């Protein structure tokens, strides 16, 4: 049995309903919120749905024949699990087709591979690469030397954003290899450090190629081409981390994107019923009479149980409403995704992608 889910019926949402969410008519130019953004970075507290939302956003952005790269940077194979494809390796592979011919490619960015690629590109290393490996220098640089790992990971993303479809083509008019790049980023606790590579290597590498690489990456990350989106649930800790991270991002000058409120429950009870439920204002007799009419034995236990559930539910909703108010006060474009009762599979991702599109995120 499935229970339909949706968020349209949310009676208390403090944010205004978006007109854009009303079925875009065919042919009309869709006004999306992140026109001009080519690098979408998705973060959030652990477990809130970063990977899921990044995947849905990539699919949404890929609609109408566009090419999108979806990259993860923590080597967790979250993307391949979400799309149910074989684990991602060191090359970019197509993992999904979007509506009207669009394509999503997947990549699990690997720091070691990025370093070797980088060394090869700039130093034509040859044999020295093996030596570096042998003496543990690659391990050192990719796992131990603080900050270097992040420069390598973001560096690969930077490269993908700038890559041209035809690598000989030059100049601003040349078509990019990807119309957009979406990054499934580290969680809120680490993301600002991850993105602020310039600061991270400032004390460690004052000069040298890593330094100039970090400078270029930072320039891109702080440009209007980039947006850092935050995924949250309507719970205390995820919302708090969202608020804190937005402040941190602002302080470092990173462009803040939208807030995606994930896993929203479908709201069934109307505002006045919730109100009544919270204050014991629902008539037991009426409920019992209704139940009896449809041949459900209206025992005391059942009626009491239902009313208790309604009261608990009203309490939860009230708390969610408080959190939603905090989210609304951030003043960022906000998107709402329903909690899919069957969990998220490849179809679920498509459903979420459509929802993001309908709300104007892509």
């Amino acid at each position, binding site marked *: 049995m499935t229970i339909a889910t949706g968020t349209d019926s949310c009676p208390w949402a403090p944010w205004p309903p978006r007109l854009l969410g009303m079925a875009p008519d065919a042919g009309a130019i869709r006004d999306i919120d992140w026109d001009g953004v080519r690098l979408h970075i998705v973060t959030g507290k652990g477990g809130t749905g970063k990977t899921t939302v990044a995947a849905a956003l990539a699919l949404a952005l890929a609609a109408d024949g566009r090419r999108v790269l979806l990259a993860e940077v923590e080597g967790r194979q979250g993307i391949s699990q979400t799309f149910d494809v074989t684990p991602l390796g060191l090359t970019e592979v197509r993992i999904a087709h979007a509506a009207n011919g669009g394509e999503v490619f997947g990549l699990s960015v690997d720091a070691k591979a990025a370093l070797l690629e980088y060394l090869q590109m700039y130093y034509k290393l040859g044999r020295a690469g093996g*030596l*570096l490996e042998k003496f543990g220098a690659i391990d050192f640089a990719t796992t131990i030397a603080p900050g270097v790992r992040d420069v390598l990971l973001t560096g690969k993303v930077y490269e993908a954003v700038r890559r041209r479809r035809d690598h000989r083509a030059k100049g601003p008019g040349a078509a990019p290899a990807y119309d957009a790049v979406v990054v499934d980023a580290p969680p809120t606790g680490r993301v600002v450090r991850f993105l602020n590579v310039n600061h991270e290597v400032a004390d460690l*590498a004052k000069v*040298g190629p890593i330094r100039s690489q970090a400078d270029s990456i930072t320039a891109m990350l702080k440009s209007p081409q980039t947006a850092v989106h935050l995924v949250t649930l309507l719970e205390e800790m995820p919302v708090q981390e969202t608020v804190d991270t937005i402040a941190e991002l602002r302080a470092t000058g990173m462009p803040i994107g939208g807030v995606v409120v994930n896993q929203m429950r479908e709201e069934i009870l109307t505002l006045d019923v919730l109100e009544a439920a919270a204050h014991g204002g629902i008539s037991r007799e009426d*409920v019992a009479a209704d139940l009896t009419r449809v041949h459900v034995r209206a025992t005391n236990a*059942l009626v009491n149980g*239902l009313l208790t*559930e309604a009261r608990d539910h009203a309490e939860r909703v009230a708390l969610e409403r408080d959190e939603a108010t905090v989210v609304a006060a951030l003043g960022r474009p906000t998107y709402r995704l329903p909690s899919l009762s069957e969990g998220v599979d490849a179809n679920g991702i498509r459903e979420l992608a459509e929802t993001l599109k309908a709300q104007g995120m892509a």
Partner: protein
Amino acid sequence: MVPVLDVDALIGDPQTRIIVCCGAGGVGKTTTAAALGLRAAESGRRVVVLTIDPARRLAQSLGLTTLDNTPRPVKGIDDTLGGSLDAMMLDMKRTFDDVVEAHATAEKAEQILANPFYQAVSSSFAGTQEYMAMEKLGQLRLEADRDPDNPRWDLIVVDTPPSRSALDFLDAPKRLGSFLDGRFIRLLAAPAKAGGRAYLKVFSAGVNVATKTLTKVLGGQMLSDVQTFVAALDTMFGGFRKRADHTYALLSDRMTTFIVVAAPERDALREASYFVDRLDEEQMPLAGLVVNRMYRVSAPGLSAARALGAAEALDDEDSGGPSGDASPKDPGRTPITQGLLRMHAIQAEIAARHESLAKRFVAGHPGIPMVEVPAASGDIHDLVGLRLVGNALAGS
């Protein structure tokens, strides 16, 4: 029969001196640790709870507002049975600094603390937090037993860092240790010590190429920082390792026990499963599993399907219905009942899903004691909430 995790027996046993709460992120480790600590204290034990990342409001109610990296008494507990409760929140950088200061001369410590490489490692290296949590546990243990006749604490409850994997807690200290012992770091610090004389020449040539290349890429400053750091640290290495090994050994001690916390979700239970197996492998004592945030309905007699059916039947009646004999009724009331039934159906479905996930875990791990803690309708952010969780943990 599923064995029940009896937390009252656990905290009532004076032999239990350390309880470690672990599990995947966000499942309720901190909440469980605090609730256990409170319950133990109110049953007469002298408890210290080491939390890592309490939610802000919980931290406030535990009085964790001054962050000085030492335990402070929690106000408002019931101490009629002679117990006490202290709590603290881990300050990872500070704990690391303390370790350095404890192991080096004042002059050397100062040198290390000022080193940029040290600063980066101590505040950002993945695994430092886990390592420092263990280090702090070791310190609390020493502090507890300073005066054996009058121990300051007789029970330490430890929360673990919000790692993505529950196993990180067990692995990170070793990882940090082996990184400080890492090959390249050692080579940088003392290339001459690395091999025999004959070997040395070829060897150094290789090291030189490696070092040169890295210098080109990273800039010379970084490597020289690493060199001074490692040189300064060299004398403390032994102490470092010994300490980590000692704390690790503490974890397999009879006085220690683990509680694995999970939420009734596939991923969290999978993590719990790995952790349970790992504890078994390492012969570390597992008290049992807490499945936290279980959804429960208050009207369990009515199935989701039945509730939906009834809601639809009311719908039919409303619109004249198939039966045709619509009795006169107030249109304002029926929708309320319909709403209640639909809401119940959704909740009953979630509850059933949670129940079946928990059952499957149990089926896969027979013999592991388990207890379920229901999801409260709000956050758990004060002593009242913690007591309720404590009650649930004790199965009442």
